[in-house]
């Protein structure tokens, strides 16, 4: 009986918990990724000379950031910026901008 009650409670709470978590995680990604927009444009849609993030896949963005960070890819400022982010943070940023990926990379 107690076990059943617990199950009911878990079932009822499940959507609420996942929403709260997803929302918190989204905000965490927002917090990291929104900085990029100052140079790469709102939603990564760069209107000028800086390469856009919009349309790139999460995989492409994550790899680019990792290679800038390690120095494997040459850059002007991105090497300096990417060193400020962990692997996990890079993944969150990549996912944030990559969600608008149109599949072309």
């Amino acid at each position: 009986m107690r076990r059943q009650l617990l199950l009911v409670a878990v079932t009822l709470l499940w959507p609420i918990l996942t929403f709260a978590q997803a929302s918190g995680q989204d905000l965490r990604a927002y917090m990291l990724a929104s900085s990029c927009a100052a140079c790469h444009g709102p939603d990564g849609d760069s209107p000028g000379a800086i390469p856009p993030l919009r349309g790139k896949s999460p995989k492409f963005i994550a790899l680019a950031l990792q290679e800038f960070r390690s120095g494997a890819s040459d850059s002007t400022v991105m090497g300096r910026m990417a060193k400020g982010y962990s692997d996990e943070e890079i993944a969150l940023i990549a996912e944030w901008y990559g969600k608008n990926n149109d599949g072309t990379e």
Partner: protein
Amino acid sequence: MVTRREFLGVGVAALGAAAVGVPRRSWSAGVRVVVVGGGFGGATCARYLRRLDSSLNVTLVERESTFYTCPFSNLVLAGLRSMEDIARDYQGLAEKDGVDVLPAEVAEIDPVSRRLTLADGDVIEADRIVVAPGVDMRWDAIPGYAASAADTLPHAWKAGSQTELLRAQLGGMPDGGVVIITAPGNPYRCPPGPYERACMIAYYLSREKPRSKILILDAKESFPKQGLFTAAWDELYPGMIEWVSGGAGGIVSSVDPATRTVFTSEDFEQHKGDVVNFIPPQFAAQVAHRADLVDDTGWCPVDQSTFESARHEGIHVIGDACLAGAMPKSGFSANSQAKVCAAAIVTALRGQDLPPPSYANTCYSLAGPDYGISVAAVYRLQGGKIAAVEGAGGVSPSDASAEFRSREARYAEGWYDSISADTWG
């Protein structure tokens, strides 16, 4: 007579009713956030508040219908950009982002009741207020440099008519003349700005009036990107720019606007300029002082994770006016702080936790049209203070190729285009 306050009240009530039956949204429906100031900080915050929660009522109060950006205003002095190029308006915020843009001047902010009184006497009530007023000049700091002195010795540290005045004075000066730039002690708006300005004025002079000189009288012993700037001066404008540090006699003791004379070394030395670009010490804009948001430093102390005032609950201060740890007073910093602040307000209204804040800044400076240099940093909260992440950031390499400098110049332009779109839509 329906006052603006009553009118707003009706709007809030109507929105509240509309939100009934949508419980996920009801936590913030009817809540009004008023943003004071439509620069890089205020406009970004208004926009991102609406993007994070479209049920929020966001009012942006800004007295000017056109905002001239300080970034790239030095290029106007060089003749590389027009005033139109650096003009921004609020149409995008109003039409695309649903921000209620109110063209008015804020006279007073009551930080306890969170009530704003406009210059025309109207009153607005807010649940939260974001104060992003920028800086004002300290007219009492240097004897001789009162507000009226800026008509003769422009500071041009707020873009607009001051930029045009300085440009006109440069146009009118003789070849072989002297331009004096005075640079204040820290902190002040745009730390690398005076040195980029020297470059852009030198660019103009080297083409139009090549026998002229630029003298920078500095209150400081060093300045940002110093090695890069001095190398660029030698390379692009050899012999034209002289920098005098505070210890070497650069500290200004007084000024005589009538004769365009700047006195240093306790008035024992004097320098006469054909043009004097006098950049005085600054503090948080006056409206923040009147709202009791300023401490004895002249700036606004805040909780550096939420930008909520350390002095008054429910009032946030962002941009140049606030004390933001290691972050410089730049348009990029203001834009970055605005996004953190928007998240802090939305999570506070929802009773959620704010994720660990993350901030960034990149300051590009143009030494010439094809010669860009930058300083960058990523910031996190450490022990309640905003601190730069160790091992990240830093300045452009000193041994970079001409191609690298040229790329950074293009990226400076790209940054300007992007942050403009990110801030004003």
